[in-house]
């Protein structure tokens, strides 16, 4: 039982060692010799243990699970990729309002000397005809 635990623990350590380097985003390749030695050691330990117990089926299963694939080599750049310098510039939206259609030039501009107010005393609201009255300011 102890050799089996040892074997499983060893496998977990190898696996965690491979995964542990993910934190740095840099994966290094485990030397094949070390992997081969680990596989051989695990298998020998398992064979010795299971043979002594007379469990050939378990031995075959263990041999399959103990086979380790070489750790894949993943190259990750720790620095961000280059920023595209030729990205098109997005032009700012500029709203243009054409007021010519909204306010035709019908009136006087402020300060126009020709601008004169009507005499309020001459205004009769009930004049007996239609009339237009505009209240305005010179300012």
């Amino acid at each position, binding site marked *: 039982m102890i050799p089996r635990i040892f074997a499983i623990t060893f496998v977990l350590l190898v696996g965690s060692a491979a995964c542990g380097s993910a934190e740095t985003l840099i994966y290094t390749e485990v030397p094949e010799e070390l992997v081969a030695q680990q596989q051989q050691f695990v298998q020998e330990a398992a064979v010795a243990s299971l043979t002594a117990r007379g469990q050939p089926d378990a031995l075959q299963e263990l041999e399959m699970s103990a086979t380790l694939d070489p750790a894949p080599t993943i190259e990750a750049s720790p620095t961000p990729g280059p920023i595209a310098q030729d990205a098109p510039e997005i032009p700012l939206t500029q709203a243009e309002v054409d007021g010519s259609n909204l306010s035709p030039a019908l009136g006087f501009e402020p300060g126009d000397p020709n601008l004169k107010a009507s005499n309020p005393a001459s205004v009769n609201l*009930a004049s007996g005809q239609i009339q237009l009255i*505009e209240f305005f*300011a010179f300012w």
Partner: protein
Amino acid sequence: MAPIVHGLESKYENVVPFSFLDIDDPATEPLQNALGYGRQWRPFIVILGPDGQVLTRPDGTQYLWIGVTPGEFIDESLIELLSAGG
């Protein structure tokens, strides 16, 4: 804010009288009060009927404009009123 309907005055000369009242002239206050002008807006334009009341369209809206108003609106309204026999 200068009057905006002076250009129409010549068009309706001798047909529709136009009056331009200075809101800062104290003499216009009785007229402002009579027409319900609270000096909140300018200009303030109304078309009055023979009885001195602001005319009303069939849909219930008044011939009254607050703020800068395109002259076409007022022109169309005057044409509408005169063609209706007002």
